[in-house]
């Protein structure tokens, strides 16, 4: 899979800026005080479960819905809050593609150019060029219903890209594809992004897609942005309980702060002492109730004196259950903290009923309790 270092760093200039955006449907709050910026050339992902407001936010950027209230809303420096979708220089790839069933592949791709009164031969030339780019070279005259899901996806991409929008908006575009095709399309989207140097805003509920593809992720829940950062930040340093759970930290315990040493925090869980990094926004105080979280795959079995050094969090454990998953072994072990989940990649041959487990304080986050 593509490594982060291969992704071109976005330019510092902001192409989109939104501040204090609120949106309500009747009495239901859909978006609450959302502020964000998108850099030119950036691949930004709006991540969240269904109902988190991520798609609504995307529709706001597209202009398909107008916010109830917004402080600042500029696209390429121009105020856009009241400009309808058909006058905005952005284009959306819809979840179900939104292809016109009565038009051919080529006519679909040309639709936006037709709207802009581009002459027919020029339209056709650009459409064919774009179809080559998405690897649908000979599909110009095909009807839409004769295409597979993956091919429809590419037509929708070509239809948006041919307009050279300032921002390409993608609303869960891979949701309807099967696993294998999804992985292929992830790589292709990334290579398109690199080739065109265009700005992408991508909506998904899949943390794996978000981590693989984005420069930056906005994690959303209940209409609010709960954490913003690079994929590594979100994955390793969630700063609230929702983010920790959403990013797959299986081990979360409530704790109390007993000591603060720079960024390193000592906490007690059920009387047991362990250490981790404070990632919350507010300053921690001794005695505060907090939560402590760590990933199951960071927990190791202790051999001899322990491989992770003297300051590791280390506990006696009793085997409760083990599930063989092929590539790895999922284990639940009872310890002084409570039940700890382990994901063992290489140790599943020898596992007795009693063993010791350890993990690094730097792989442990201490976050506010909520």
């Amino acid at each position, binding site marked *: 899979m593509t490594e982060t270092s291969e992704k071109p760093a976005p330019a510092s200039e902001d192409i989109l800026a939104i501040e204090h955006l609120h949106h309500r449907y009747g009495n239901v709050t859909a978006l609450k005080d959302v502020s964000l910026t998108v850099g030119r050339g950036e691949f930004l992902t709006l991540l969240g479960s269904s109902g988190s407001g991520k798609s609504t936010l995307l529709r706001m950027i597209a202009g*398909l819905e107008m916010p109830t209230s917004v402080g600042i809303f500029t696209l390429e420096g121009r105020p856009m809050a009241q400009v309808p979708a058909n006058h905005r220089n952005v284009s959306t790839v819809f*979840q179900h593609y939104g292809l016109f069933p009565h038009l051919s592949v080529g006519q679909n791709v040309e*639709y936006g150019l037709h709207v802009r009164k581009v002459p027919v031969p020029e339209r056709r030339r650009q459409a064919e060029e774009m179809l080559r780019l998405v690897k649908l070279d000979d599909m110009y005259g095909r*009807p839409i219903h004769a295409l597979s899901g993956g091919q429809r996806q590419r037509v929708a991409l070509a239809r948006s890209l041919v307009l050279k929008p300032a921002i390409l908006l993608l609303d869960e575009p891979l949701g309807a594809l099967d696993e294998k095709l999804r992985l292929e399309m992830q790589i292709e989207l990334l290579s398109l992004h690199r080739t065109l140097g265009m700005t992408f805003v991508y909506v998904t509920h899949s943390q794996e897609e978000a981590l693989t593809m984005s420069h930056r992720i906005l994690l959303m829940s209940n209409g609010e942005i709960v954490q913003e950062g690079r994929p590594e930040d979100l994955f390793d340093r969630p700063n609230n309980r929702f983010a920790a759970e959403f990013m797959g930290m299986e081990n979360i315990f409530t704790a109390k702060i007993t000591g603060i040493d720079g960024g390193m925090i000592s906490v007690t869980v059920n009387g047991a002492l362990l250490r981790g990094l404070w990632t919350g926004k507010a300053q921690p105080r001794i005695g505060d109730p907090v939560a402590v979280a760590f990933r199951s795959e960071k927990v190791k079995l202790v051999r001899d004196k322990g491989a992770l050094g003297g300051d590791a969090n280390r506990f006696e454990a009793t085997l409760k259950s083990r599930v063989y998953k092929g590539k790895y072994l999922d284990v639940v072990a009872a310890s002084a903290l409570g039940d700890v989940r382990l994901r063992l990649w290489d140790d599943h041959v020898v596992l007795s009923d009693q063993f010791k487990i350890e993990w690094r304080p730097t792989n442990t986050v201490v976050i506010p309790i909520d």
Partner: protein
Amino acid sequence: MATASVPFTRFISPSGVGPLGVSAVLGAWTLIVILPLLGLVLWSFLKLENFQLVWEPTLQAYRDLLSSGRWEVTVRTLRIAAIVTLIELALAVPFAVWLAKGTRSVPVKVITLAALTIPFFLSLSARTIVWRAVLGLNGPINSALMSLGLIDQPLDWLLFSEFAVIVGLIGPYFPPMVFPLYLAVTLIGDELLAASKDLGASPAFTFRHVILPLALPGLGAGFIFTFIPMIGDPVVPELLGGGQVVVLASSVKSLLQVLNYTVAAALSVFMLAIMVGLAAILALVLRGRVRRQST
């Protein structure tokens, strides 16, 4: 080993109608619809002498048809039906688009659809006769125009005229135009309309290039349910035309009243040919469009 009795299986069509049922339906259809039609066609090629049928083939009835000014009646009938159909189209298309896509409120939809159905509970004559009072010399329209000082004599062409017939036909033939159109527009996905807007299209462009082509089957059905029955409808022209506006259906009726069966049959065959011809043209046009969409 004792053989278990193998259950006797035979083909059962998905609809559950066996060959017996099919032939019963076909038989009834032949008896009730096809035979009378064939009789009609047969009669149109015979002639009457002293109110007695003469059993030898002749085109006399069709010659009488052409010589007796029925041509003018045909043109008038088609003209009225065409004008009313165009008016219905102009009214029903925006209405159907609004009802299907413009309003999200379920109560509004339910009430509107109910309001469109309720007129069917009243007889057409009862609904039509009201126009006599409205359009008459002492009716509210003439009174209003006179009190506004726009005219000093009541307009006499408001009632018992082609104008009155057209006005009277608009109401009853509105629902059959709206319903198929409404259904067709409902079937257009919201995402398509959003995509069109997103690609920069104005509402007019979206209407012309997305809604209209996708609603074409509904448009065709609406045409069949309005234009064609209007050709055969004598009620409104008789009540509001007051004998001034003779249409094909009334013409057939008056021929029957003077017992001129063969010419009445010829005229009916002629009307049938017009309707079948129009439906065929429409089917061909639509099939061409639909085939282009699906290949």
